[in-house]
């Protein structure tokens, strides 16, 4: 029963690899990775939904995240470099050989806007932080690494449309040092310079971003 989708996955992967000549080495290999098994997707869907657009504000939207970013996070959960009570338990049951396929699957899902209710005042306060940073505190613009539309990439993740509760929690964790798997240790430094109110504001603005159309 699992053979059908598995074979289709291989074929699709091969076609994708052919269709995208510009992708970096390593990416090609990942693009050929077989799609995840259905029982595996069910496990992930219990928190992140079938299409990766989690409805639970604390659980991140995975849809549209760059596969290389997703693979890195899965590896970090597995090794304990990124700590999470929930993912730490779940990931123990997932073999590393499955990571590429899982990342490819969620990377391909279409992100939907968050259903979280947003305070327009917070959104307005967050926009200049995202676009230009805070000069007095030395906060760089989020747009510098995550792109002006929040579309992100393989190293600095897509933020557009992410649940504000999740973004806020991650910023707080970077600030406390609880999360320490950031690219080049940059987010820990950035979060140090943000107040809780500023974090809430920028998280609200991020939720309104649409990211690039694909």
């Amino acid at each position, binding site marked *: 029963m699992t053979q059908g989708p598995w074979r289709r996955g291989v074929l699709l992967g091969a076609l994708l690899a052919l269709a995208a000549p510009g992708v970096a080495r390593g990416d090609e290999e990942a693009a050929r990775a077989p799609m995840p098994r259905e029982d595996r997707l069910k496990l992930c869907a219990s928190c992140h939904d079938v299409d990766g657009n989690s409805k639970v504000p604390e659980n991140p939207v995975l849809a549209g995240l760059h596969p290389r970013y997703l693979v890195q996070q899965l590896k970090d959960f597995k090794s304990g470099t990124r700590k999470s009570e929930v993912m730490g338990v779940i990931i123990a049951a997932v073999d590393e050989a499955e990571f590429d396929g899982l990342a490819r699957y969620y990377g391909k899902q279409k992100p939907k806007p968050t259903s979280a209710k947003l305070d327009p005042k917070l959104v307005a306060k967050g926009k200049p932080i995202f676009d230009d940073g805070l000069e007095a505190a030395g906060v760089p613009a989020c*747009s510098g690494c995550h792109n002006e539309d929040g579309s992100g990439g393989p190293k600095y993740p897509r933020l557009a449309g992410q649940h504000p509760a999740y973004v806020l929690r991650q910023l707080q964790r970077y600030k406390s040092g609880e999360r320490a798997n950031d690219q080049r240790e940059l987010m820990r430094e950035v979060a140090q310079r943000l107040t809780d109110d500023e974090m809430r504001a920028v998280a609200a603005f991020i939720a309104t971003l649409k990211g690039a159309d694909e």
Partner: protein
Amino acid sequence: MRRLLVILSVGLPGAALGGDGGAWGTPLPELVQVLALTGDASRGQEAFVVCRGCHKPDGAGVVSGAYPRLTGQHARVIMKQVTDVRAGVRQNPKMKPFAADHAVSTQEIADLAVFLSQAATTREGGKGPGTDLARGQALYASKGCVGCHGARGEGNAERFFPALAAQHFAYLERELQFIQQGTRGNSHPEMVEAVKGLEPKELAAIADYLSRLPDHRKAAAAKK
């Protein structure tokens, strides 16, 4: 102009060799390393992603002067300043963590320097009030600035003296104040000497004059 440069460098041999906390004496070991590397502009463009949040995607900095324009700066100057910041020789606590070795590798410093020195300047910089430009120009000449930073504010790559033309007014003004107060940390002793006793208005006039000079690369191209 050339004579002045010779007089300055001959007249102050101690300053050229020793001086300010090693910033202008024996080069930092990492600067020596960076200078020996071959920088690559396309790799530099990639590495620049980390800098964009403050220096803006085009590297032209901000008019407020909080972050300087980097485009068109001499590669050797960028190499020196970045290695100085990360070694803590230049006092810049805001930038230091983003210039640390976990954020930028030694090779990337060389790459960034080459990329930025070649990158086009697409935006006008911030300018001062424009009310004291004649005094600014006169001070720039009489205080010996020309000897090191050039008549067109083009700097001196060989000697690590920055290009100043078309830099944001507010940034130039602030750095002149820092140099005068001794808080920049890696000021050249001759530079400290040059601004000694100048009034805030005079520093502002020099900064305003320089901010209005065209990008030194444009000026050099026009001269040819």
